[in-house]
């Protein structure tokens, strides 16, 4: 038995690949449930509609294809569509809607959309595109085309269906509409300027008419209807681009577009309907003078990447965050020894940077290039010096006490919601100044990491110097760490607290402690005076006998008397302050408590209680435990019942502690809070942070500043931009310490949008300022320009808007030397069109005079680089095949 025999047997049950492909196409058309009917479109309905797209991958002959369905989402007028359709049925043959649309003039020259929709004014269509390869082979194209036709016919789908052929970048298609016993064939012709040099003469109306008529072949009963559009790209200046980056030197943060957010204004001069016999357009002469066009319209062509400066800066920040290098990595690049500075105590931290010279050893390591060593060494030194100077300047300016930050000027700048709720730092605080300095270090495009690292290093030195010299930090107001602020702010506040403790201690040695003692003595003297003689005498005599019973460290006298000495007043002692904690310290304490047994947990927290007891004993010689409880926990003592039950429990921790503590005033007690070690812990921690860890500390403040900058810069007339700034979400994240890289990235993206939109508004405001006689017209124009796909200009070439545009063209286009020489055809002032588009239409009985009258259409576009024709020619298949 030969192989062919077997094949023959199985052939009956196996569908061929082509059949399978047709079935797959048909199946997909059914699955999508495509609507092919519809009522006539409103004018510009397609341009204003949103478009939907569905797609599906298919396989055929070992190639993969993308089947796509594109459709404009048009609000159907209630019921109207169906009524119309029924009327149509009675009047004439019902041809597919897509075929009728070919003659609809209301949706010509859409400003945006899929090229097929632009060329043919489709409201919905199917397109099959080879995924990877180009369809070059003619027989393959024919096979697939016939498969398409068959599947459309089988599915009774009356949508245009196109197949992309030839080279992808040429956008060539072939396809058809099948329905109502008619069909329309689509063909696209495309020439590059090079190829087209021979054919360029046909790129005018008279030649196009010739092509159209010869393609239609049947006689055209009425003159061909024409629509023509000449399009020009008009450049507008965007002069504030450089100003947007730096307004003022260090007090303003980056904001806005660095390049024009609107690349150019696209001006279209259209003749929506012209009869072929009324216009002459040949290679030698044209009637098509743009200044005479009945309709002018414009649309903005946006810049895809207007380089928004705040978003760019934030992204630069995210980049170094992501790289997560140790600080030393950057510092060594400029020969800055990371260990230096910790031992030095220069009074001015800025001096160190200036006086420091780069170390050659570091540089050799850095360059690692022996031949280029001398050169690179010099360059390197120069670079290091420059960066150091720059950072020094930034710090000198931002850390100076009189830096006026945008918010302190009060020029409608602050965002109260942000300033009150964001977990970052207070306005005009030292941390805010650091944040501003960081921003300025980030604003340069190169060597951001080095600048960042140096700034951080110098900030630590700044803090350290203040601590060592016992100078209070500027702009740190809180008395102790405030948990509603960011951790960095809390730590800075903690350092300030440590400096204060140090000052107090230093002061106490010379005066404070004596003062305190004096004060309490004076108080006791006063009380002696006010009290009766006996008390006074006894007190004196006691002092003389037992010196250790002299009360010490009294803060305040109370109305209570000691239980054992009813003549002695109970004094509140001077106590040690509860040591303040930053949130990471609280967390560490919490963690520590959780790992201990209950008894130990009490012991761990007894330091303050024991200190209080000592101080109380010292201030109230002869006092008993009950006296202490009366002051410290008043609810646990009553005159009737004495101590509460819980204070008399055997093994009571309070009682135990009371029995073991010695009378000692605070001045002689061990400090519960060790300012030196707490401050040094922070310094050590800061010095060992890598960049990503520093970023985590800085981020809430950075984001706060970025949002404030956004709020300050968006236009105040319209709050829609303000609403786009992600304020409340970011506040929430900051309160939960959840400002991750991803969150900052989102903020950057959203701010980029705001900057872009703001840039466009600024562009508009700059170029079409709402003033003068035409104020209202310009206002209406501005309202539409950025929000509508296309804006019709009132009065066409003679209106006030056209006047502004023509002035811009005049200003920007180079003047022609010879004013008298004739301007080239189609040019507007001195500007050549970027596109010339023509649509030729006719309704023709085709292919024979008895056939139905069907739409014929040819679209053509001529740009400086290419020439394209897209034809749609319909024929009646009913009586002619």
């Amino acid at each position: 038995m030969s192989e062919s025999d077997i094949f023959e047997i199985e052939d009956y049950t196996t569908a061929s690949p082509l059949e399978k492909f047709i079935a797959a196409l048909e199946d997909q058309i059914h699955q999508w449930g495509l609507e092919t009917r519809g009522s006539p479109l409103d004018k510009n309905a397609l341009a204003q509609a949103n478009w939907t797209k569905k797609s599906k991958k298919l396989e055929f002959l070992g190639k993969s294809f993308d089947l796509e369905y594109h459709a404009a989402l048009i609000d159907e007028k209630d019921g109207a569509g169906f009524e119309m359709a029924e009327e149509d049925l009675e009047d004439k043959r019902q041809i597919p809607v897509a075929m009728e649309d070919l003659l609809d003039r209301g949706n010509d020259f859409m400003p945006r959309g899929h090229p097929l929709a632009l060329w043919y004014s489709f409201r919905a269509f199917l397109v099959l595109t080879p995924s990877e390869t180009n369809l070059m082979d003619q027989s393959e194209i024919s096979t697939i085309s016939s498969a398409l036709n068959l599947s459309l016919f089988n599915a009774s789908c009356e949508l245009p269906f196109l197949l992309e052929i030839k080279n992808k970048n040429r956008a060539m298609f072939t396809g058809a509409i099948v329905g109502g016993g008619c069909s329309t064939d689509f063909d696209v012709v495309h020439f590059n300027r090079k190829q087209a040099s021979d054919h360029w003469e046909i790129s005018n109306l008279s030649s196009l008419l010739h092509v159209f008529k010869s393609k239609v072949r049947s006689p055209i009963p009425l003159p061909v209807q024409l629509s023509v559009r000449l399009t020009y790209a008009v450049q507008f200046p965007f002069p504030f681009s450089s100003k947007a980056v730096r307004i003022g030197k260090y007090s303003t943060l980056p904001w806005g577009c660095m390049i024009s957010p609107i690349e150019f204004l696209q001006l279209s001069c259209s003749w929506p309907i012209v009869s072929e016999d009324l216009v002459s357009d040949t290679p030698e002469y044209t009637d098509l003078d743009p200044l005479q066009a009945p309709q002018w319209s414009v649309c903005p062509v946006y810049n895809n990447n207007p380089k928004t400066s705040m978003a760019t800066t934030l992204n630069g920040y995210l980049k170094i965050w992501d790289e997560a290098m140790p600080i030393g990595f950057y510092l060594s690049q400029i020969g800055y020894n990371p260990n230096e500075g910790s031992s030095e105590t220069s009074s001015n931290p800025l001096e160190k940077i200036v006086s420091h010279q780069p170390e050659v050893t570091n540089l050799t390591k850095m360059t690692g290039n022996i031949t280029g060593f001398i050169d690179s060494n010099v360059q390197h030194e120069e670079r290091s010096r420059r960066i150091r100077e720059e950072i020094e300047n930034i710090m000198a300016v931002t850390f100076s006490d009189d830096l006026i930050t945008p918010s302190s000027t009060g020029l409608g700048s602050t965002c109260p919601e942000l300033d009150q709720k964001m977990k970052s730092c207070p306005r005009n605080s030292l941390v805010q100044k650091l944040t501003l300095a960081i921003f300025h270090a980030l604003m340069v495009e190169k060597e951001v990491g080095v600048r960042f690292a140096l700034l951080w290093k110098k900030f630590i030195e700044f803090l350290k110097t203040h601590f060592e010299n016992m100078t209070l930090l500027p702009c740190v107001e809180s008395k102790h760490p405030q948990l509603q602020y960011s951790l960095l702010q809390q730590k800075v506040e903690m350092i300030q607290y440590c400096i204060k403790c140090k000052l107090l201690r230093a002061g106490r040695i010379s005066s404070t402690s004596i003062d305190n003692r004096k004060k309490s003595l004076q108080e006791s003297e006063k009380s002696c005076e006010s009290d009766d003689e006996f008390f006074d005498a006894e007190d004196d005599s006691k002092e003389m006998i037992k010196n250790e019973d002299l009360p010490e460290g009294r803060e305040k006298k109370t109305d209570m008397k000691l239980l054992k000495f009813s003549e002695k007043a109970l004094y509140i002692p001077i106590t040690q302050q509860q040591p303040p904690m930053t949130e990471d310290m609280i967390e560490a304490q919490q963690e520590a408590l959780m790992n201990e047994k209950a008894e130990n947990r009490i012991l761990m927290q007894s330091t303050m209680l024991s200190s209080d007891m000592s101080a109380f004993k010292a201030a109230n010689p002869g006092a008993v435990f009950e006296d202490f409880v009366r002051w410290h926990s008043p609810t646990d003592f009553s005159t009737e019942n004495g101590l509460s039950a819980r204070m008399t429990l055997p093994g009571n921790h309070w009682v135990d502690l009371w029995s073991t503590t010695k009378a000692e005033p605070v001045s002689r007690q061990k400090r519960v809070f060790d300012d030196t070690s707490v401050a040094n812990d922070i310094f050590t921690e800061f010095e060992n942070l890598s960049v990503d860890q520093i970023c985590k500390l800085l981020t809430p403040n950075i984001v706060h500043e970025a949002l404030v900058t956004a709020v300050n810069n968006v236009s105040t007339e319209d709050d829609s931009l303000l609403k786009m700034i992600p304020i409340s979400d970011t506040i929430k994240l900051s309160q939960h310490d959840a400002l991750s890289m991803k969150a900052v990235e989102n903020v950057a993206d959203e701010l980029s949008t705001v900057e872009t939109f703001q840039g466009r508004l600024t562009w508009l405001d700059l170029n079409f300022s709402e003033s003068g006689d035409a104020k209202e017209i310009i206002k209406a124009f501005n309202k539409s320009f950025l929000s509508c796909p296309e804006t019709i200009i009132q009065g066409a070439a003679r209106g006030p808007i056209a006047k502004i545009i023509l002035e811009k063209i005049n200003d920007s286009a180079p003047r022609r030397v010879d004013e008298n020489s004739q301007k080239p055809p189609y040019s507007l002032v001195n500007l050549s069109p970027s596109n010339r588009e023509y649509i030729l239409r006719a309704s023709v009985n085709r292919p024979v005079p008895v056939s139905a009258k069907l739409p014929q259409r040819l679209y053509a576009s001529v740009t400086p680089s290419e020439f394209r024709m897209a034809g749609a020619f319909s024929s009646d298949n009913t009586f002619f095949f």
Partner: protein
Amino acid sequence: MSEAPRRFYDLQMSSPSTSKNDATDQNFDYMFKLLIIGNSAVGKTSFLFRYADDSFTSAFVSTVGIDFKVKTVQRNNKRVKLQIWDTAGQERYRTITTAYYRGAMGFILMYDITNEDSFNAVQDWATQIKTYSWDSAQVMLVANKADMENERVVSTERGEELARQLGFDFFETSAKENLNVSASFDRLVDVICDKMAESLEESAQAASTGTQNLHDVGQSENKPPCSC
């Protein structure tokens, strides 16, 4: 700075592990940090022991600083680990206890029905919560020692009225007679769960509008904010 310490508000999934100790038990789906606050001697510690250990002693040693107990409960088939912090009510400990407010998802604010002062202080405690805790923290107002009816000086109505004014839920409880102790904790856990679901929804919505924005800027022909 070491790896960020584990946050108590993180709603984390942890791998199950066997542990004898409830405090270190990692077998839970969510962890809620709760705080019991109120004047000294209103019965906070007794209340907590009743709930966590189902035991009652007429007197506990006055709490020094802060202490905690852990209890795991089931909610919608999820194990919720409650880390309940008991605080000293004395004025002297105010700084240390308020430091623990941040990160707490719920509060039991307690007064003693036999002690007028403790009731009068509720307003101050509520202010403390507002100042130091998260905006989303939930609060139960609990009137303890309901068994001591003979010595009652604060009527139920006054308690209810105050709770209404403050926007808190209200329970009269007795740690001694085990009245409403679990009920008040259960209610607190429920409202926290509700609040959580709410904010999850919100953030999901925020995320979707966020993508909308990104989508807009991705297109060069995007629509600016003003309508046509």
